[in-house]
């Protein structure tokens, strides 16, 4: 059951709880090594570049305030974006949920009579599970980001939002490419592997006339869309096809072109530890003679408006998907992304996924954190993730209040009993004495308990417990009390 090769479930509706899903990963040393290496490399580069930026905190403050302002005035900025984008020759569509977004995209593809489509990495399309839907409807979707190709050809699932294949190492990539591209003599040199991907995709870029992208930013003032990337596959998809479809969450909008001066300085440094990513593209509707002559934007709500309505949770939508929080997270760094059972892993996933699921699924995720605050510290838009985690935990507990099963939950029973014992001193003393006798049976000579029966085993499976001392503080104090007291009273 807990075999390392278990295929991770990435649909929060079907995924096991976080502690269950984490087990196979924790036993997979290769995967853990890959995750640790990748997050270490990015973290080190990020920290160096952030340290050289004297105005880093001022940039964060500006970005945080700007994103909060956008969310407060979201309807206006979206309408502005729609108006300007339309005036520039684009078509704007609105989708309340994943199903609507998929239907709109399929409709456009049918109009274009497209049986194939090239894609720029977009987590939003993974959120709405677009690829399997297109496949089922006779449209082959080709991912073009190197990491996404590795995942797509290897039948793997994304485990990070910026470097989604960070859990796959070079020899695994070699195996996938050799098998799927029919290249028997491929070596595991990253350069050669990258070249293989370049050749594999070149023809697709030139031949397939329809593309799908995500968006990093939508500019209300101009109706423009901005996409941030490294490889140039984005530029290919944005430039060569006849028809372009951009899928964007409604929260992606910025008021003005100039606001990019804040966001672009933060994004690349936080995401990949670069002063600037190799390519950022911005386009506005349709430009005669340059690039796609038919352009669609699909604005996706999918529960975002519900998140917007909740005061403490709203900040979740400030996110610019830089992944700094997962690279910094001591939990993510151990488990990698698959344990989160969602395309959004790490601290941001722990708050975003259950909210996207209306708190009906993924309730274990708000607990997948030690609340150490590392995520908050690195977040370029200052999302107080620990605060939101606590808020969501409170909601999960509230949900459980009504359920009869909780009366049989050992945790519940334990805390109820503790409640009683701590309320009365004499009861507490009796419990102490009984506990000492009971636990005495399991305490070894060294004063430690190495294994307990029943639910106590949950503790001793992974750590030892100190035995109770022979004498409690109260007993010691009472004895000492026979001597005259020394305090002033």
């Amino acid at each position, binding site marked *: 059951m807990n075999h390392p090769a278990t295929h991770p479930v990435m649909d929060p509706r079907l995924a096991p709880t976080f502690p269950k899903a984490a087990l196979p990963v924790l036993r997979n040393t290769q995967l853990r090594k890959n995750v640790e290496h990748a997050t270490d490399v990015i973290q080190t580069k990020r920290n160096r570049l952030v340290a050289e930026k004297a105005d880093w905190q001022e940039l964060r403050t500006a970005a945080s305030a700007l994103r909060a302002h956008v969310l407060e*005035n979201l309807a206006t900025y*979206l309408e502005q974006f729609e108006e300007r984008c339309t005036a520039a020759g684009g078509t704007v569509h609105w989708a309340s949920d994943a199903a609507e977004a998929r239907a709109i995209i399929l409709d456009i593809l049918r109009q274009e009579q497209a049986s194939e489509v090239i894609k720029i990495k977009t987590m939003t399309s993974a959120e709405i599970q677009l690829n399997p839907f297109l496949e089922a409807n006779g449209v082959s979707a080709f991912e073009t980001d190197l990491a996404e190709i590795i995942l797509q050809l290897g039948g793997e699932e994304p485990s990070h939002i910026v*470097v989604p294949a960070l859990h796959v190492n070079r020899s695994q990539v070699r195996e996938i490419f050799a098998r799927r591209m029919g290249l028997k003599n491929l070596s595991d040199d990253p350069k050669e*592997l990258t070249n293989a991907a370049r050749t594999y995709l070149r023809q697709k870029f030139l031949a397939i006339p329809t593309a799908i992208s995500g968006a990093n930013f939508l500019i209300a003032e101009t109706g423009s869309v901005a996409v941030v990337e490294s490889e140039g596959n984005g530029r290919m998809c944005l430039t060569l096809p006849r028809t372009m479809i951009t899928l964007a969450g409604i929260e992606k909008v910025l008021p003005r072109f100039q606001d990019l001066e804040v966001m672009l*300085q933060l994004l690349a440094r936080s995401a990949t530890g670069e002063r600037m990513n190799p390519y950022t593209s911005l386009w506005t509707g349709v430009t005669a003679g340059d690039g796609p002559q038919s352009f669609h934007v699909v604005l996706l709500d999918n529960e975002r408006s519900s998140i917007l309505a909740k005061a403490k949770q709203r900040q979740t939508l400030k996110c610019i998907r830089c992944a700094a929080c997962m690279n910094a997270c001591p939990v993510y760094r151990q488990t990698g992304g698959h344990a989160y059972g969602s395309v959004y892993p790490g601290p941001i996933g722990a708050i975003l996924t259950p909210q996207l699921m209306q708190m009906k699924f993924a309730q274990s995720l708000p607990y997948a954190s030690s609340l150490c605050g590392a995520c908050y510290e690195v977040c370029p838009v200052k999302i107080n993730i620990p605060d939101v985690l606590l808020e969501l935990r409170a909601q999960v507990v509230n949900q459980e209040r009504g359920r009869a099963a909780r009366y049989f939950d050992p945790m519940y029973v334990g805390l109820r009993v503790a409640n009683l014992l701590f309320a009365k001193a004499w009861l507490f003393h009796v419990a102490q004495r009984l506990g000492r006798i009971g636990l005495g049976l399991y305490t070894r000579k060294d004063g430690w308990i190495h294994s307990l029966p029943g639910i106590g085993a949950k503790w001793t499976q992974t750590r030892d417990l100190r035995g109770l001392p022979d004498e409690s503080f109260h007993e010691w104090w009472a004895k000492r009390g026979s001597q005259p007291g020394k305090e002033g009273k």
Partner: protein
Amino acid sequence: MKAPLQSRQQIPRQRILERIRAATLDCAQDPAMREEAYAALPRAYTRHGQLSAEARLKLMIERLREYDAEVVETTPEALPDAIAAQLAASDKHSFLAPPGTPSEWMVTAAWKISGLEWTIDHGLATAEIEQSEGVVTAASCGIADSGTIVLHHSASEGRRVLSLLPDWHLIILRASQVVETLPEYFARFQQPSGLVTWISGPSATADIEMTRIKGVHGPRFLNVILVRDKS
């Protein structure tokens, strides 16, 4: 086909906007208030650079070289020769140029090095662009802090596809176009162009074990000639 898709769209559009409005009762009540709130946003980050003109150019060159871009400096008078030298050293034979390429770059005999083939883009087909090995374009701005070159895709910078498919991209950047910080770029271009490409080094990936590999889909070689004009 188009009409039903559009009208069907009206329903979710209204529903989403209504939901957003209901969720943001704290929003600005009128455009003036919103403008005011926007204007009051904190912007205490560095806008203007501190470097001297000379140090700014030095930083620009240093950053470009960190990205493995090749950089040479020249004067306006020597530019045609500098271009010719780059072409000769490129080991490529077929080149493209945008229609708005300044004539003073073109007239010189230096461009007509024997064996080099030139095509000016007057609406070339993608396949023709794909056949070419190199491209020479102007640029709109250089940002020293991050070693970024900005294309606005004007007639001298070329269509987007022109600087994308050929493997070798030579950019002519004038010293007067170089600013120090990203905010200085935005201050200079208040009226944005509809198309912008910010280029910071040749295309790259670190998707396999975080090993940086230069050149995935965009040009694998980025060369820059920095022209010391009078600013």
